[in-house]
């Protein structure tokens, strides 16, 4: 592991004694005209499970793609992303350097299992490829055997038979397991999961979450779990980062953030997901308005056009209050509210 750069003090240090495996500082993503993600900073300790929460359009997936260096053409990233054991800033690394990191030190599971596998290749070959591409396993038949082992590890029934199957012969939950097997093939230090269970039905989802949690625990892989489902975050993660309008608005231990939110947006999310609470007209609670289109967020605090507490101070960007845990709000929800 490389020592943290002394000239760049980490603004939100992690707990003592654990060198972070991933350090993100001031990450921004944007096109030539629009800022899509601004000033995202966080660290990830080895084996830590962090949830990235937010509505659609809040910049969660773009943040993950920026970490992998997989942003679409015309979208650029700024800031620094450092991965333990990898030299340099991943944001400015060449495509060639990134391709040695991807799948090896940092892997990703995508949202849609139905399209994330190549339809014309056998599942086992695709898993084996995940290993041979980084030269971990040179021998083809050894890679195939290892692939069957991996499919067994993600608890697919009949792993040898599944390895021979084509993707269309598997269910959504099975394919997502295959994706997880591929992502874990090289025992990456960091695993990014972009809403891996959103496309699955509820019972399959629960088993998948349990599988993700236990497999990353076995291999000591740190997890960034992107979701809009607060219940999922509570199940899987130790720490939560709440994103809105391309910024992290609140961070902290999951229990803390979900039980005593400080940011009005987090509070709104929690109220909206409480299906027993209703407003004075007997309707379920919602957050007023909707997420603006990219570039349509207000200056200053990004949430102020939907926030019940907003006033004139909110025209300025609120500073980050706290360290590793904290929030960015001028008028935080008080602990006893």
């Amino acid at each position, binding site marked *: 592991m490389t020592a943290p750069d002394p000239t760049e003090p980490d603004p939100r240090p992690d707990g003592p004694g654990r060198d972070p495996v991933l350090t993100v500082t001031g990450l921004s993503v944007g096109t030539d005209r629009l800022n899509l993600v601004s000033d995202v900073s966080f660290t990830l300790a080895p084996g830590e499970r962090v949830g990235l929460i937010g509505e659609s359009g809040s910049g969660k997936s773009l943040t993950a793609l920026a970490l*992998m260096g*997989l942003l679409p*053409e015309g979208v650029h990233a700024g800031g620094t992303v450092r991965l333990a054991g990898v030299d340099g800033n991943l944001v400015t690394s060449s495509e*060639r350097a990134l*391709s*040695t*990191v*991807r*799948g*090896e030190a940092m*892997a*990703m599971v*995508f*949202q*849609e299992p139905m*399209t*994330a*596998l*190549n*339809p*014309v*290749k056998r599942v086992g070959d695709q898993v084996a*490829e*995940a290993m041979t*591409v*980084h030269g971990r396993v040179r021998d083809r038949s050894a890679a195939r055997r290892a692939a069957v082992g991996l499919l067994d590890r993600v*608890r*697919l*029934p*009949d792993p040898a*038979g*599944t390895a021979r*199957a084509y993707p*269309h*012969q*598997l*269910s959504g*939950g*099975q394919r997502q397991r295959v*994706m997880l097997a*591929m*992502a874990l093939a090289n025992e990456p230090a960091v695993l990014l999961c972009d809403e891996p269970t959103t496309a699955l039905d509820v*019972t*399959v989802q629960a*088993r998948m979450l349990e599988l993700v949690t236990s497999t990353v625990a076995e291999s000591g892989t740190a997890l960034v779990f992107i979701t809009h489902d607060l219940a999922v975050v509570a199940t899987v993660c130790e720490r939560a980062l709440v994103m809105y309008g391309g910024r992290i608005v609140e961070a902290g231990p999951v229990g803390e953030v979900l039980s005593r939110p400080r940011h009005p947006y987090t509070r709104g999310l929690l109220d909206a997901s409480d299906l027993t609470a209703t407003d004075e007209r007997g309707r379920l609670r919602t957050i007023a308005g909707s997420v603006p289109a990219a570039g349509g967020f207000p200056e200053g605090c990004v949430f102020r056009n939907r926030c019940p507490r907003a006033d004139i101070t909110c025209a300025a960007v609120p500073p980050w209050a706290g360290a590793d845990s904290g929030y960015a709000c001028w008028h935080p929800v008080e602990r006893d509210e």
Partner: protein
Amino acid sequence: MSGVADHGGGWNGDRAATEARGAARTVNASLVTGGVLVATVILTALLSFLWTPHDPVHNDSGARLLDAGSPGHWLGTDKFGRDVASQLMAGARITLLVGVVAVGIAAVVGTPLGILAGMARRGVGEFLMRVNDLVLAFPALLLAIMFGAVFGAGTLTAMVAIGIATIPNFARIARGGTLQVLSHDYVQAARAAGRRPVGIALRHVLPNISGLVTVQCSVSFAIAILAEAALSFLGFGTRPPTPSWGRMLQESQELLFSAPALALWPGLAIALAVLGFNLLGDGLRDRLDPRLAERRT
């Protein structure tokens, strides 16, 4: 995890069922008709190496312009006394040779070009495709005639010229398919797994567009056959004495009113071969079209 077995336990049986359904779909009229016609042309060409009723290039001055059905000459003889049936059989060789070489050149050059144009930066891809349009706009026959004038008319020149003129068709098809494949998550997933662009092109794009390219091969084969016949008819293709369907047509032209059957046989052969490859292409399209394939599963 017995619950998962509920999901997956039956997949071996499912697979058998899927394959049975797929087999039922293979009974496809255009595929079968096209396949039979193409097979006939290929078998005839192969047979002509071993056996023809007569030497196709032997001039028999005693047996000129015999009618079809004459003893020993089922389809009659031409003005030089050459056996028409034997010439047709030997002409199938040239037809296939031209098709294979021309389509080979076009597919081998055009497909990678199209994949490159699809995977390169947008500006580079657009530039390649505009150059492609320029070549596409140039008439194939004119290009072949120019080649003939510069390098000398002959089968080789014709094949190369037809091949070059067909490259843009493959490039365009391959680029379209590539863009479609690139929009799928598994390409993103492959990049996330550390695959480099060349690896993605070979392992993900090419296998997924191979159906499109195969169909284009069959259709282009038909066009190449027609082009070779046209060039030979104009005197820019296969040179005498090598038998060629196009030249047989040309030689029969002056006798069109006295011996119309001489034009009928090679014309029929060309029409059936072209029809065969076109039907085969259509049938393959039905079988290999990714959208239809998805509906099938």
